[in-house]
């Protein structure tokens, strides 16, 4: 059977999709944002065990706290999603398991992000 396709035609589409840099760059951008947000959150969450329900609700209702908490959650979850994806890509070598793993990470992290945002908004607006 003769192959009439030219070498160039066979090579096309086998190279980089030129999209790999997006995730790498977003990981860095979120990392930069998480330096101040992470520090703020570390100082804040350390007080969690000593806070009552009323104190916690009042704290979340302070406008700057609401804003910083929402920022931290959105960016931290996105950063986590990208990081876990890299870990799976590096250590899982079965193609189907890698796909299931990455898909699972994305779905679970998205759901958790939504839950956290919902909870904060509901605390703030009730």
């Amino acid at each position: 059977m003769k192959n009439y396709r030219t070498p160039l035609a066979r090579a096309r589409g086998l190279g980089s999709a030129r999209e790999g840099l997006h995730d790498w760059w977003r990981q860095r951008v979120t990392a930069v944002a998480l330096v101040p947000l992470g520090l703020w959150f570390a100082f804040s969450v350390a007080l969690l065990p000593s806070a009552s329900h009323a104190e916690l609700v009042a704290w979340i209702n302070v406008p700057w706290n609401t804003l910083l908490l929402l920022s931290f959650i959105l960016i931290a979850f996105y950063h986590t999603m990208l990081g876990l994806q890299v870990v799976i890509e590096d250590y899982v070598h079965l193609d189907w398991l890698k796909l299931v793993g990455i898909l699972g990470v994305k779905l679970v992290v998205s759901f958790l992000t939504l839950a956290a945002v919902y909870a904060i908004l509901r605390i703030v607006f009730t």
Partner: protein
Amino acid sequence: MERMNTEPPRPSVRERPLSPHLQVYRLPVTALLSISHRITGVLLGIGLIGLVLVLMSVVQGPSAYAPVHAFLSGIAGRSLLWIWIIALLFHLSHGIRHLVWDTGHGFSRDSLLYYALGEFAAALVLVLAVAIATLARS
């Protein structure tokens, strides 16, 4: 034994370095830090699940939050929280080094250990700062 001696010596084969055998290989500090960065990253992700559970229990009201609060203020809860905070501050310190690396600096052999010690010192100072601030405010 005799059979081994009958084999002709192969001239071009010499002792080659083996790739690191993880059970007997002493990891360099940089490699230890690198894998710790990943492990703490995964731990932090798991901890975020806890954050969501806390927030959802707060939404459901004081009675739903009561058992969560009891756990958080107990030994187990406080230990987990502080492990998470230490992991966060370590991950943050090493993360800053990754950002420095991304600019193309900090790769010289001599500076690696220096950087590693600086990171540990930074993480330790931050943990102490959070601990002192927490004690002062609670």
